[in-house]
Every structure is written in structure tokens, then in C-alpha cells.
């Protein structure tokens, strides 16, 4: 990785005796789109607020572009911030809202007007410039907030759950819009969310937070396919966890012994025999029937079949485990109570630390 553009060095933040952020190290390159994913209270918003300057770290240092910023007041940091509730100024028109950062920079009127117009056109709100924020829909307000955070061409854009208040369809449209803007303008974006789907579709890298610490950081595919901890496996996407002990391991594979006595083969780092582990298998990786060999085969009883429109979700009792299976609509739907065989390939299940 090139020289980091933003870096957190051993940054901690505590309120009273409670550590919200605990000795965080994090480096972000210029032009990167990094999502901070985690449940509420995991410290992700606090990290964003420290980067924006609204909170001061209890200890540690924050660098942006080689300059230490943690003592700098927010108005000198030159970062665009998009808030969850948009934080548009209700007493100003859309154009005045977008023009605010330009006015603060004493930009000449003519140049500022041109920039405001381009920014509003970029978010397809060119015709709304004279309206008040209260006269706009949630999605339009969000786009104004985006235009306002981008119009002064900041190097870093911070987004705090910006799509949280939008309905599903609009949210997906905005995800694509933001990703497109990121690519086109070469922005460095730090995006806080608790929605794993959003993080997976938009980011270059995802940092999964839990209790003020990074559980895992990596590309979306790494996070989803190879979670390193049980928390990440459960938080990002749906998964089945099966507990067992390592019987033998090596060469990226491991044989895991289940409490029932049967064994499963899985992808795994090298681990000592006897280590207690969990196996993570995504519901969509489990197939009905004894398909591809060599494979892990489980047989069980269908407990419940849930209709999801584009797919079916099966709840399966197998070997004392409850498994979720995502079943294609093309396959004939099984019925509750039916006995079935299921299989999954060793490369599709992954060993995570207990």
C-alpha cells in the first residue's frame, strides 16, 4: 500500500470509564472508499466524529495528508461531512445551503454561482435551487447534503449513515449514485453504516467494528467469504455456524470433528489439532442432494419453508444443528417434515475462531 493518506495511530476515546474506541490503528489511502461497519455503540460514529473534529481523542494521533489534525478545529479541516439527518440549514434555500461552504471560503460570487449550479446538476436538483429544504423529499434533501459536502472539493468526505432514513429503493439508487461520484471525482470516502449490504456493495474496503476495536478489515469479498472471527461471520450476511474441534489440519484444509462424531472438511488456516473452532457456511452455499463429490454431506429434516419471493429459505434440523439454507426457486420446493440430503463443498465453508 502507498503512503497512507489518513492514519489513526493508537487512537482511544473514552467517555468516563467507558472506552468507546480502544487503541485504534487504521490507514486509508487517497481515493479509497472505506466503510465502517458495526452495530450501534461499536465506536464507528465516534471515529468519524474524531476525524471531522467534533470529538477529541482521549489519546493517540490522527494524520491526514501527513499533517497531524487531532488538535485542529473542525472548520480548518476541509472535510465534507454528510449527516444521517442531512443537517440542512432550514432557514436557507437549497442554493444558499450548497453555497455556504463557498461563502465561508470567500469565493467570488460569479465563480460560486457556477459551482453551485454544477453541484446541483450533478445530483439532478438543478431546478430546485430556490426551494427550502422543508419543501423537498427525503431523497432530495439527501442529495442537497451531498452536493453541499462536495461543492468545495474536499479531499475527504465523511458520511455518517447517510442513507439510513431513506426507503429501500431510493437507498439502492443513492448507493449507486455515491459509488459513481466516488469513481468520477476520485474522492476519499469514509462511510459509516450498520447495513452490511450497503457496505458490501459500495466499499473498496470494509472495517468491521465491535466494542471499539476493528474485528476485521479487508475487501468486501474477503470479509464475506473469509471472515476471521465469529462476530464478523454473523454480522456480515447470514451464516450457519457449526461448532467442533480440529482433528487434523494443513495445506489450507482441515478436518473438523463434530460433537456427534461425524467429520466435515473445510478451508482453514493451519491450526493445532484439538482447537475449538466454529465452521461458517453461507446459506446460499448449501445445495440440496448429494451433488458434487468430494463434499460434506448432511442429512436432516426440513423444519420450515419460508417464501421470500426470489428464493425460499429452508430451516433444517441436521445432526442436532439448525441450518438455514437458501433454495433456488427453480428447484421443486420441499415440504416441512420431509427428509433431505444437503451438501456443501469444503472450499465454501470456513473456519473462524471461537
Amino acid at each position, binding site marked *: 500500500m502507498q503512503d497512507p493518506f489518513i492514519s489513526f495511530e493508537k487512537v482511544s476515546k473514552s467517555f468516563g470509564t467507558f472506552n468507546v474506541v480502544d487503541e485504534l490503528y487504521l490507514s486509508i489511502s487517497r481515493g479509497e472508499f472505506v466503510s465502517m461497519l458495526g452495530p450501534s455503540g461499536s465506536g464507528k460514529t465516534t471515529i468519524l466524529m474524531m476525524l471531522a473534529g467534533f470529538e477529541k481523542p482521549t489519546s493517540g494521533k490522527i494524520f491526514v495528508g501527513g499533517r497531524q489534525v487531532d488538535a485542529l*478545529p473542525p472548520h480548518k479541516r476541509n472535510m465534507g*461531512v454528510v449527516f444521517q439527518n442531512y443537517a440542512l440549514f432550514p432557514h436557507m434555500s437549497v442554493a444558499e445551503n450548497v453555497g*455556504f461552504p463557498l461563502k465561508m471560503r470567500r469565493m467570488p460570487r460569479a465563480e460560486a454561482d457556477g459551482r453551485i449550479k454544477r453541484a446541483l446538476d450533478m445530483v439532478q436538483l438543478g431546478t430546485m435551487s430556490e426551494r427550502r429544504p422543508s419543501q423537498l423529499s427525503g431523497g432530495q434533501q439527501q442529495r442537497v447534503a451531498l452536493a453541499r459536502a462536495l461543492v468545495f472539493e474536499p479531499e475527504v468526505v465523511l458520511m455518517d449513515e447517510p442513507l439510513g432514513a431513506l426507503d429501500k429503493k431510493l437507498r439502492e439508487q443513492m448507493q449507486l449514485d455515491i459509488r459513481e461520484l466516488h469513481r468520477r471525482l476520485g474522492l476519499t470516502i469514509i462511510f459509516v453504516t450498520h447495513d452490511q449490504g450497503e457496505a458490501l456493495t459500495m466499499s473498496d474496503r470494509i472495517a468491521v467494528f465491535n466494542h471499539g476495536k476493528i474485528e476485521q478489515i479487508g475487501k468486501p469479498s474477503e470479509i464475506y467469504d473469509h471472515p476471521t472471527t465469529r462476530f464478523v461471520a454473523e454480522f456480515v450476511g447470514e451464516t450457519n455456524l457449526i461448532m467442533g474441534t480440529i482433528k487434523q489440519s494443513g495445506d489450507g484444509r482441515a478436518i473438523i470433528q463434530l460433537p456427534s462424531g461425524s467429520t466435515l472438511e473445510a478451508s482453514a488456516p493451519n491450526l493445532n489439532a484439538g482447537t475449538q473452532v466454529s465452521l461458517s457456511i453461507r446459506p446460499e452455499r448449501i445445495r440440496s442432494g448429494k451433488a458434487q463429490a468430494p463434499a460434506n454431506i448432511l442429512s436432516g429434516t426440513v423444519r420450515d419453508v419460508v417464501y421470500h419471493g426470489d428464493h425460499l429459505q429452508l430451516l433444517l434440523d441436521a445432526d442436532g444443528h439448525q441450518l438455514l439454507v437458501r433454495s433456488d426457486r427453480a428447484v421443486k420446493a420441499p415440504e416441512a417434515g420431509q427428509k433431505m440430503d444437503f451438501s456443501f463443498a469444503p472450499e465454501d465453508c470456513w473456519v473462524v475462531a471461537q
Partner: protein
Amino acid sequence: MNGLNVAKVVFGAAIMFFLLAPLIAILPLSFTDSVFLNYPIPAYSTRWFNELVTADVWRRSIVNSLIIGSGTTALATVLGTLGALGLRNHASFWSLSFIRTAFLLPMVVPAVVLGVGMQLMFARYNLTNSYLGVIIAHTVLAVPFVVINVLSVLQAIDPRLEQAAASLGAHPVTVLARVTLPLALPGIISGAVFAFATSLDEVVLTLFVAGPNQRTLARQMFSSIRENISPAIAAAAFVFIVGTIFVALILILSRKSLARR
């Protein structure tokens, strides 16, 4: 309509009557032709309004009320707004909640007690018998109204608006001038109106600290009731009430135009 609703209407009407009856009793007397303040009214005239604007004592007292009222409004609005800004968002700090209570104290302390204290203190600093003294005394009473009004709008402002302004490059002073104060304006205006109204009908402190040159309208009404009851008092009351309604109208209209923005 069921029994409960009838009871509500009757009760409401009774309260309205209780509040308005004294006004309805006194106001028509301001248009009397007689020199006595009693019914029945023999003939109608505007002679007592003439008296109000021509008689020196009444005219001066009206001017004094306006001078002292505006001075109080300006001073109390500035001080109260600053106080509210300082007290904002610190509810959990015990020392600040103590200060907040102290700010509201003039509303609770008997005016006579305040008046005696002020008279003693003002005498030391040569403030008795001066406009400034009366304005300061009225400001002490008016500040709590401004603090309460401004504090309640400030607490309703989303702090993220100010954070957003800062992140967009606004210096804290600019944030205050362009975001916080414009959003707090409705509260500041109603605080100012309350301050003016407080000064307008304040009598007790005025008795203690004002000299003969600072007789306000309320003070003049008070003494003329004791000395010679004349329908001029009713006329003064009429002016008073019309003035108050006028100020209230300004308040409502400015609220509406702010809300429309």
C-alpha cells in the same frame, strides 16, 4: 354533545369571563364625558385621551415608559440571549444548573425585597433617580423571560446543524451569526416582547429606584389612583391594552413570516 363537553365549554367560558370582565368593566369608562369614574356613562367623548396627550404628567410618563421599555428590551435581550447561549447543553453540570436557577431567581423573589436592595445599592453608585437605574432594575426582572424563551428554542436546535456549518468551514463566530442566532430568532423575539411587557407594567421597583423625572405610565397610573381618581386612568389603561395587543400582533406576524421561510 355529551355532558363532559358541555362542562368543558362552561368551564372555559367561566375562566374567560373571570379574566376579561375587569377589562370590559374599565375600558368603556375611558370614553366618558364625566369627571367621575363610574357608571352609567352620561355622554361619550374623547376628552380623557386629550388629557393624556396634553397634560404634561401623562405625556411625560408615556414617553418615559417608551424610553425605559426600549432600553430594558435591548439590554435584557442581549444579556438574556448571551446567558441562554452559555447555559445551553450543560444541563448535567450541577454548577451550571445552579446558575440557571439563579438566572430565574428574580421571577420568584418578592419585588419589594429586590426594590429595597436596589435602592441601597443604586444610592452607592449614584444610579437612583436616573433612567439608567430604572432600566437596570427592569432588566433584572426581564432577563429571566428572555433566558427561558431563548433557551427553549436553542435546545430544540439540532447540534448537527452547527457541526455541519463548522465542517463546511465556518468559524465558531460565523456559526453563531449565520446558523444559531437566525434559528433562535423566534425565541429571541418573544423574549424581547416579554421584556418590553415586563418593563411596561412594572410598578414596585420603579417606586423604589425612579425619581420624579422617570415616572412611567404604570407608576403615574398608580399615583393618580391614590391622589385623584379620574377617567384619565381608564384612558391610560386603554392605551396600555391597545399597545400590548399591537406588540402581540407583531410577535405573531413575525413568527408566521419566520415559519414560512
